[in-house]
């Protein structure tokens, strides 16, 4: 029996496109409309390399066990550890994240998401700056100048430009692209720059200087230089005039800005620049979030503990110190002695010098498919894919919460992250 479901939310990236139409044939997704190549892979290749049975590694071989055994063994490992570390969370629902943070609190352990070495860092600059922001819908309806700084949406978020920023016609932008000026600032000419009006090629690692010159120009100074970061002062002035004369300017900053020299200081400087520009016109800054619910973890963790990521409960109260309680430093200092990895693949994303330590400690992984992390894990618990097999809340890149539907049911015996974490939390509470 075939069925068509419309307005499905795609868990492919931070744009969370909410207009996907999915065709089902007896609980199998056969085709979809409107999803990009990236989202299409999520829908159609849902069963690729799928894990179906929980396993425990014994004497070097993986032995299949039942779910209750795997969960009780996980609880045992986490309870016996002095510094259990709960990592991941960027590709699961807010409901699961909430229980995960409660679990870290009960275990007196640490909790951190992938955002500690990604866009979560730009959230911590909120502590230093004000943040002028808007939703993507406002950008679509009002923005006449769009600036992409250090991000390449055509390859990272393929539908970002067509769904919200550049091409669509909005309420106050009835001519669509013709009424907008799109600028790309990057270290090389990306595919995004192929269809934009202007492109500024900035020298790698010198974004901070460019932002500083822009700030000094906004404040009325006349710097005695001809070029900055390989961009002529004339071009910088032209860019500034363009933004100042705009009705509504949206600046999207990506990891190119965050991961070059200066790291979060670049973002901090950019946000100060945006705040200063607001004396002339409305300017907003939005981070280009990669994982579909990465910013969701920052919100959930903020309202539960007061801090956006990297929270340490070992002293029975939440403590946040980036550079001490964050993933990279914890692995570097070998401070943790057990790790629960939910909806993340640290072995693929982190350098070998850090992940080599994971072979020395018990790692428990909850994932949908086989990844390099599941290969080194002591316990592997298969889960359902949030957003397609499980309903739940996720935050879009502009911090708008959206409720994702479950469109198909997971394979027999496979539970959601939330259900497994709830069982784990109950066992931990009982043991105490």
């Amino acid at each position, binding site marked *: 029996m075939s069925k*068509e479901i*419309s*307005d499905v939310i795609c868990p492919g*990236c931070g744009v969370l*496109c909410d*207009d*996907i*139409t999915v065709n089902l044939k007896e609980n199998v997704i056969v*085709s*979809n*409309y*409107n*999803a*990009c*190549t*990236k*989202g*299409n*892979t999520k829908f*159609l*290749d849902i069963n*690729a*390399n799928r894990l179906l049975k929980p396993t425990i590694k014994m004497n070097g071989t993986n032995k299949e066990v039942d779910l209750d055994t795997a969960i009780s063994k996980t609880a045992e490992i986490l309870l016996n550890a002095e510094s259990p570390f709960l990592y991941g969370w960027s590709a699961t629902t807010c409901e699961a994240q909430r229980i995960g943070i409660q679990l870290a609190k009960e275990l007196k352990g640490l909790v951190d998401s992938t955002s500690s070495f990604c866009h979560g860092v730009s959230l911590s600059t909120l502590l230093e700056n004000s943040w002028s922001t808007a939703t993507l819908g406002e950008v*679509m309806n009002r923005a006449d100048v769009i600036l992409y700084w250090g991000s390449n949406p*055509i*390859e*990272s978020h*393929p*539908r970002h*430009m*067509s*769904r*919200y920023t*550049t*091409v*669509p*016609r*909005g309420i106050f932008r009835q001519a*669509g*692209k013709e009424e907008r000026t799109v600028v790309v600032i990057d270290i090389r000419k990306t*595919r*995004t720059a*192929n*269809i934009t009006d202007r492109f500024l090629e900035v020298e790698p690692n010198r974004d901070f200087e460019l932002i500083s010159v822009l700030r000094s120009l906004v404040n009325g100074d006349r710097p005695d230089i001809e070029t900055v970061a390989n961009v002529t002062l004339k071009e910088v002035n032209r860019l500034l005039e363009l933004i100042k004369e705009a009705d509504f300017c949206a600046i999207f900053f990506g990891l190119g800005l965050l991961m070059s020299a200066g790291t979060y200081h670049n973002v901090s400087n950019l946000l100060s620049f945006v705040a200063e520009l607001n004396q002339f016109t409305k300017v907003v800054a939005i981070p280009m979030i*990669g994982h579909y619910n990465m910013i969701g973890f920052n919100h959930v963790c903020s309202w539960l503990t007061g801090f956006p990521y990297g929270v340490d409960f070992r002293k029975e109260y939440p403590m946040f110190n980036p550079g001490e309680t964050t993933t990279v430093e914890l692995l570097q200092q070998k401070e943790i002695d057990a790790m629960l990895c939910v909806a993340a*693949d640290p*072995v*693929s*994303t982190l350098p*070998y010098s850090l992940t*080599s330590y994971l*072979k020395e400690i018990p790692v428990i992984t909850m994932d949908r*498919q*086989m*990844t*390099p992390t599941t*290969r*080194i894990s002591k316990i592997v618990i298969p889960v359902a894919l949030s957003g397609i097999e499980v309903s739940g809340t996720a935050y879009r890149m502009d911090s708008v919460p959206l409720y994702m539907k479950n469109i198909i049911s997971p394979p027999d015996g496979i539970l959601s992250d939330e259900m497994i974490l709830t069982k784990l939390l109950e066992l931990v509470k009982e043991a105490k």
Partner: protein
Amino acid sequence: MLEKLPYLIELQCIKCLSESSGVKRMSEKKRLNAMMIYKLLPQTNCRICGEPNCMAFTVKLLNRSVELKQCTPLFDEEQYAEKAEKLKELIAPLELAKETGIILEDEKCIGCGNCVVCCPANATVAPETSGGKGIKEAHPDIIFLVEKGLARIYKLERCRRYEPPRTNCRVCEMMCPTKAIEILQ
């Protein structure tokens, strides 16, 4: 480096979760123009093909109103054999072209949907597409639609280049970031 990663090299390639997964990179081709074809023709203006000169034949070849085999000297005379081979290779994409000369290459498409949203004729059929929103179901008169992660051309007869007054609209080609859409004439 690989020696240090024993648990990685054992694995076959599994779907990488990086930002750029699913995005294909292809080298970009040079656009086909009349001079590229003209240079490879005999340039004798012999009129065997029925056209007044070789340039006129070139233009009609580009419009697909004549066929290359009508230029008989190119195939009969040995001195042009090499040029004939090159020319065959050069105009091969023309055979893929639909009525209005649009080529949509799946290999390059990333399904961004820019063509769906910017197409003015699409907006007359399904107004929601002009606001960035995808359509709920395949409309019989839609031109562009993203299906299974790739853009598809459905009803090309609705294109402004095809319907009278046949405007020279190239907006889909201009907005395609990967140059997957090419309009040949």
